[in-house]
């Protein structure tokens, strides 16, 4: 069963159409990727999927709680990583003991326990990205929407993050990952939707198997 469906979604800003007739579905426990040229509307698509923005036309059907992990982390510089992560629980009625229990478990899993007392400026890009992911995971979402999760990370951090996302996927957390780093994306998702230049349309959907990278590159850049 699909936990998220976009049905014939259209979106325009100031008269300029950004998304044109986008339909896709995210099966429960699966990770799918979205790739496309810079500025084509990938982030807008994620915001609509997260119900942060409304489509002009079309429908968003959610069967679970979505959480968006933004590209630039948006960690508050005046809070430690611990307080940044716990901030996500503020709108929920969760006891401090339960919040602490969740924090410890997620921090241990992501390997950031020793950094919890530090401020964002004091940690590496990879650790900051993991903290942003922890802030999303602490609310126990059913759907993770990741916007360019690999951007700005070194090779080791990319590999660690890929491993984390793969293990989350095995635990039936459904994910949409937007990325222009195709090799990394292919190593994490089952299928990829390719978007065209603005206004973005889905021009191809393909399984992330052998030969996918070549097909994507040809579709996006050599046509």
């Amino acid at each position: 069963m699909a936990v998220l469906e976009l049905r014939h979604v259209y979106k325009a800003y100031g008269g300029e159409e950004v998304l044109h007739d986008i339909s896709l579905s995210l099966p429960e426990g699966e990770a799918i990727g979205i790739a496309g040229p810079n500025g084509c509307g990938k982030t807008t698509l994620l915001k609509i999927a997260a119900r942060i923005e409304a489509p002009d036309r079309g429908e968003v059907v959610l069967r679970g709680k979505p959480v968006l992990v933004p590209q630039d982390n948006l960690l508050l510089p005046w809070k430690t990583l611990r307080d940044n992560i716990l901030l996500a629980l503020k709108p929920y009625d969760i006891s401090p003991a339960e919040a602490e229990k969740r924090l410890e478990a997620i921090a241990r899993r992501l390997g950031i326990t020793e950094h919890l007392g530090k401020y964002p400026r004091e940690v590496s890009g990879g650790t900051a990205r993991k903290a942003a992911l922890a802030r999303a995971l602490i609310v126990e979402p059913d759907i993770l929407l990741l916007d360019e999760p690999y951007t700005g990370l070194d090779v080791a951090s990319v590999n660690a993050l890929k491993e984390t996302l793969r293990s989350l996927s095995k635990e039936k957390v459904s994910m949409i990952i937007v990325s222009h780093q195709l090799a990394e994306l292919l190593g994490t998702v089952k299928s990829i939707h390719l978007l065209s230049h603005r206004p973005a349309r889905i021009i191809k959907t393909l399984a992330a198997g052998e030969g996918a990278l070549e097909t994507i590159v040809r579709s996006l850049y050599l046509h």
Partner: protein
Amino acid sequence: MATTLLNSILGFLLALAVSGAVAYIAYVSDLLRGLVYAYNTLIQSVSVLVWAIVAVMIFGVTSRIPPIIVTAAVAHPIILSGMLGGMEAVEKRYGLLVKILGLTPTQEFTDIIMPGTLPHLAAAARSAIGVALRISVVAEAFGASGGIGYEIMYNYDMGVKEGVFAWGALLVALMVLLDKLALSPLENWVRRWLS
């Protein structure tokens, strides 16, 4: 000297409190924000001389209140401008985060807007308290029965040039000391997470 410093600090604190309340009104609704911007433009346009004369007329020549009121009136738009500018920058930077997390307006104000605005406020406050100190002296010269402004005027009336220069120099020394020992370290402390 203590009188002038106390007048300046009280005026500054009054301006800080009023600015905080007005900034919160601007945060609550876009309509009110428009009014607050218009109000800020209006109060910036009022001359120090007008504030001083009106305050002396209302509270009397010997009252301690005019220097405090005048100082607050002059510092208030500086602090308010800093707060409004800071609020806008923080809202623009972290607006998406507020939507992602689903924070309530109160949670947004206490966890994001207020702490995020502090560095902007610190810079504005440093400037405002410097202005407050200088303006407090002007207000003391008009009314009041103490303070550096009063002493400068008294020495001027008595024709004691040395006294005028001495009290003027004391004011400059006071401002430099205040900036180096209190305001600058305070601003650096508040801005520490931006470095």
